[in-house]
């Protein structure tokens, strides 16, 4: 027989057995790899037998391809068993992939004879042949030719290489280089560029466009096109950043060999190229990352595409099983219960026929009892141990760690805990993502770990346990933890929250912002964790499963993500409420508490802010949503009715749902909504209540989204931010008044505290003001001390804005009203410039003085504050400046800040407003300058370009260069350091900057050797 006999039960039995073999094989192979030369014979034998019995059965059923692949695998394993081959990671990788392929073949056994397995068999035979030199570079005859859309010379490379890169989690791109414009004109050599490329990935192939060079008798061509087939863990956007190439020049190669140009969505106005609008470049680059995601999201359909076989990565092997193995005892108990049910029905029928009321009651009781037992037993059949889900993670962690150059061990705990099959399946992707995150972002590189006095080997623990009727799955690592501030900054930059809201958030609340769409930590660059799924998607998936996720993270110590899941999905406890004459169910898991506000307290306890209604709950304001509003029915007369509020938590936002009446908590059976109603985000499903009425299940997240509720209950704040003028720098400012009507602003990051004071608290000693603050005497300065402005008047509510300025604490006298604003500032540094005032800007339609704290502090320190100040230039009269520092910064505002900060500690400062002029200045003051601080994003010549130029000049190879950037990812920092930067500082942490300058000047900070080819 040529066609496998598919209806045969024997074959199904065989396939089930194969699948069983395959589940254990991965773990066995991994331990084989670990034991290396000291092979555990039993282990190898087990794997060998698995391969052997897969092969044997396949031969019997005429499954040729399965048989052949099984056979080759067996050959290699035989070599291992006989000690002729030491299972190193390469060998194990190939074996793992072969077994992956076997799994795919077995899953689709009917079509397996048509599958192409040549790549695997070749790899295996090669292993068998060349096992003595397993490190030799592989080459296969099979090549893949990739054409890119613009029709230039196609590029070919070995399929094996491409697949190997993909297996390592890399993405394959074709990069269009123009040797003349991209390399020569940037002062680089091809060797440098290629070496650079090889640092972040692998060059799989290259192809010149010979035509572009022209011939000798033509003018020297000004383009020379080279296509590079490149595999890297970087995502497309980062790649275009690192290479400083426009995204259109980089093509993502999909699994089926097609090339897709990296789209350039509006958000990817890559800073490198946006030189005509330098202000926009202050945004942290990493935040654009999600925008590039669609380009590299692997198309799942490609798995089945024609062409070379694509082994699924460990993450993708979670196939939905169509059969379940059951314990016979469980089946027996089901049968018994079914019998009981029949008896109960008979009893009930009998009683109904006789009109025996007592009998009916007894019968109903019996049926009810059996039903709940039956329900329990049936849901047990759907319960599966989480170990089946956990099984794939050792491999995932191994592959990831190897690829990221990290050392990570995975510990699995509580594999025996059982969960509903549906939940397990739904959990697979979120869990994969989170484990990836832990390895990629959580655990540090071995070097960083050792530096932090941790063992080089990082640990990721995946644990499951029962807790209060729920299953808790915890993913924890001992890595660097979540940086709430970075996440917060990212959320602010995305306009999800305002800077003001951020200030009020606890560390944990900041960390939880990671679940908001588009928010990322700045480090999030690698495509390992990218995969087009953000934490918000993880959250959404978990919400769908009725799960909750909590974060517990301490910077430096590690993070734990705790997922709480219901045991089963189909039956959930819910709170019944009613409104507008209908009943609704709210899943209990979303309900935080129930609040009833008596009619006479409503006035005091609720408030309005703009369009939003708020309720005061203990010490918080929680937004209110009237269910009747959401339903579109009129609100009932307020009158003397109390307010019933269900405090619900959608995961991203907590709000009070106002309903007409509260009822019981009941267990409801969830029925999905009909297809025609599924677009209604407000509803999660429906259920039939005990009385036969239908109740709709509310989706609290959907309700909030439909009503436009935002975190913090202030939906109006975030939106306008995004629409504001995109010019100018995005700054967070504290606004206050000086004299009535004189609006002033300072950057919020400079402010330590704001205190209310009464005029009487200010002590005036010898022409100097101080006040008691935290047990010490705080020197106070008023703007009119140094600048020609009006004085504060007593009728104003005074405040003291406390600054920490170059090691000195200083209070600035100011007056309310205070406000906080995040906006793009275009500063006029001419018109209103005077000592202590860096310039002015138009904020909220009012001219606002932008104060210069460093200058204020500097003026203040000098005895006898000058009263006679006109628009004097900034003073440079620092005592005997021995050291000169060059500050390159395109933003007037920052340049002034940095200048005065550095001057405040006694150095001389030269400033330049871009890299080019910095270079010119450096060139003409060669001997004088001892240190350079530079912004990264600048017009004409950026900070990295400046660094390269400085490093290329032998006069300056000792010169410390400190980069100052708003937010930088580790990747960018590493890149900068590799170009010769001495340090990378965040703009603008004054203390750290001064410390870094101090270190660099004292020579204690060794500069990394510049990388030049």
């Amino acid at each position: 027989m040529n066609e496998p006999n598919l209806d045969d039960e024997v074959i199904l039995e065989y396939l089930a057995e194969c699948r069983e073999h395959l589940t254990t094989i991965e773990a066995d192979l991994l331990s084989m790899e670990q034991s290396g030369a000291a092979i555990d014979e039993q282990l190898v034998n087990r794997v060998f037998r698995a391969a052997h019995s897969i092969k044997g059965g396949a031969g019997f059923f005429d499954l040729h391809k399965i048989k052949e692949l099984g056979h080759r695998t067996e050959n290699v394993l035989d070599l291992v068993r006989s000690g002729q081959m030491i299972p190193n990671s390469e060998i194990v990788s190939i074996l793992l992939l072969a077994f992956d392929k076997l799994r795919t073949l077995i899953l689709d056994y009917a079509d397996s004879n048509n599958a192409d397995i040549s790549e695997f068999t070749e790899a295996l035979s090669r292993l068998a042949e060349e096992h003595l030199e397993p490190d030799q570079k592989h080459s296969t005859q099979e090549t893949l030719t990739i054409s890119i859309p613009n029709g230039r010379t196609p590029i070919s490379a070995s399929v094996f290489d491409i697949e190997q890169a993909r297996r390592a989690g890399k993405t394959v791109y074709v990069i269009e280089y123009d040797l003349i414009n991209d390399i020569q004109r940037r002062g680089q050599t091809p060797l440098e560029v290629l070496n650079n490329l090889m640092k972040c990935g692998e060059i799989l192939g290259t192809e010149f466009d010979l035509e572009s060079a022209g011939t000798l008798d033509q003018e020297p061509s000004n383009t020379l096109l080279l296509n590079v087939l490149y595999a890297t863990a970087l995502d497309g956007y980062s790649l275009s950043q690192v290479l400083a190439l426009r995204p259109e020049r980089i093509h993502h190669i999909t699994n089926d060999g097609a090339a897709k140009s990296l789209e350039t969505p509006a958000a990817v106005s890559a800073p490198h190229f946006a030189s005509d609008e330098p202000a926009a470049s202050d945004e942290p680059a990493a935040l654009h990352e999600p925008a590039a995601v669609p380009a590299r999201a692997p198309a799942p359909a490609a798995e089945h595409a024609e062409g070379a076989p694509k082994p699924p990565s460990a993450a993708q092997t979670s196939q939905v099983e169509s059969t379940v193995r059951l314990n016979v005892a469980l089946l027996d108990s089901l049968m018994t219960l079914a019998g009981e049910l029949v008896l109960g029905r008979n009893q009930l029928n009998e009683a109904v026929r006789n009109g025996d009321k007592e009998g009916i009651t007894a019968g109903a009781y019996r049926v009810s009892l059996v039903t709940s037992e039956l329900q329990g037993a049936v849901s047990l059949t759907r319960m599966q141990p989480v170990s089946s889900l956990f099984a794939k993670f050792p491999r995932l962690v191994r592959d990831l760690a190897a690829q990221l150059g990290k050392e990570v061990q995975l510990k699995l705990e509580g594999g025996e805990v059982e969960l509903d099959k549906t939940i397990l399946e739904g959990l697979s992707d979120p869990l994969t993502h989170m484990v990836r995150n832990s390895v990629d972002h959580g655990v540090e590189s071995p070097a960083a770990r050792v530096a932090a006095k941790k063992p080089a080997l990082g640990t990721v623990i995946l644990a499951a346990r029962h807790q209060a009727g729920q299953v808790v799955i915890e993913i924890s690592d001992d890595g660097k933890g979540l940086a709430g501030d970075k996440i917060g900054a990212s959320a602010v930059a995305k306009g999800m929250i305002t800077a003001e809201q951020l200030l009020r958030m606890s560390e944990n609340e900041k960390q939880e912002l990671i679940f908001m769409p588009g928010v990322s930590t700045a480090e999030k660059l690698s495509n390992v964790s990218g995969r087009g799924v953000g934490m918000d998607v993880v959250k959404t998936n978990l919400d769908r499963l009725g799960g909750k996720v909590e974060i517990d993270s301490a910077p430096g110590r590690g993070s734990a993500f705790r997922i709480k899941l219901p045991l089963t999905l189909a039956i959930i406890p819910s709170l019944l409420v009613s409104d507008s004459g209908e009943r609704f169910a709210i899943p209990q898991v979303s309900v935080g508490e129930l609040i009833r506000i008596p009619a006479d307290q409503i006035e005091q306890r609720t408030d309005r802010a703009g369009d939003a209604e708020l309720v005061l709950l203990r010490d918080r304001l929680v937004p209110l949503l009237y269910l009747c509003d959401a339903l579109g029915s009129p609100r009932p007369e307020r009158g003397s009715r109390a307010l019933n509020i269900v405090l619900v938590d959608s995961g991203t936002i907590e709000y009070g749902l106002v309903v007409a009446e509260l009822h019981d908590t009941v267990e409801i059976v969830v029925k999905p909504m009909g297809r025609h109603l599924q677009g209604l985000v407000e509803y999660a499903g429906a259920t039939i209540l005990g009385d036969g009425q239908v109740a709709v299940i509310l989706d609290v997240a959907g309700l909030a989204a439909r009503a436009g509720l935002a975190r913090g209950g202030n939906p109006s704040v975030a939106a306008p931010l995004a629409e504001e003028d995109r010019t100018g720098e995005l700054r967070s400012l504290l606004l206050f008044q000086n004299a009535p009507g004189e609006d002033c602003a300072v950057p919020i990051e400079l402010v330590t505290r704001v205190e209310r004071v009464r005029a009487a608290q200010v002590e005036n000693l010898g022409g100097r003001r101080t006040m008691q603050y935290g047990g010490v005497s705080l020197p106070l300065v008023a703007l009119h001390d140094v600048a020609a402005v009006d004085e504060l008047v007593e009728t104003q509510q005074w405040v003291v804005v406390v600054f920490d300025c170059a090691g000195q604490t200083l209070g600035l006298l100011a007056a309310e009203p205070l406000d906080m604003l995040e906006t793009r500032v275009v500063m006029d540094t001419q018109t209103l410039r005077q000592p202590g005032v860096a310039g002015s800007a138009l904020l909220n339609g009012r001219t606002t003085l932008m104060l210069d704290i460093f200058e204020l502090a500097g003026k203040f320190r000098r005895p006898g504050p000058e009263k006679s100040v006109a628009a004097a230039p900034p003073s440079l009269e620092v005592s005997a400046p021995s050291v000169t520092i060059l500050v390159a910064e395109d933003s007037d505002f920052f340049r002034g800040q940095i200048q005065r900060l550095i001057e405040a500690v006694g150095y001389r400062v030269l400033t330049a407003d871009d890299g080019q002029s910095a270079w010119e200045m450096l060139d003409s003051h060669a001997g004088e300058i001892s240190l350079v601080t530079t912004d990264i994003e600048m017009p004409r010549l950026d900070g990295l370009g400046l660094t390269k130029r400085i490093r290329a000049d032998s006069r300056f190879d000792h010169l410390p260069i400190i980069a100052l950037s708003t937010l930088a990812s580790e990747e960018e920092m590493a890149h900068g350091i590799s170009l010769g930067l001495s340090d990378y500082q965040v703009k603008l942490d004054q203390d750290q900057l001064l410390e870094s300058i101090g270190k660099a000047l004292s020579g204690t900070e060794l500069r990394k050797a510049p990388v030049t080819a």
Partner: protein
Amino acid sequence: MNNKTPPQEVNSAVVHPEGDLVAARLPALRAQLQEMVGAGVIHLTLDLGATRMVDSAGIGLLISAHNSLKKAGGELTVIGVSKDILDLFRTMRIHQHFSVSGSQGL
């Protein structure tokens, strides 16, 4: 040292560029090569024994020369290539288009 015997025919020539193949030096070399091709040389050998560096424009010139010679029915041969440059050529797969061989039997 190279194993290549210098071609004997009239339409063959060996050129020994002095120093690096970088933009600044190329115009002269380009003119020289152009002249040779114009004079009927179709089998051209470039001995890069004295070359330590090749930049993008240098590669451009090599490819231009290859294009010209191929059009004329001949070929370009590059010999005496230092290890770094050889690596570069191999990475760029330039050696698939014309013969490249290194110094010291590389």
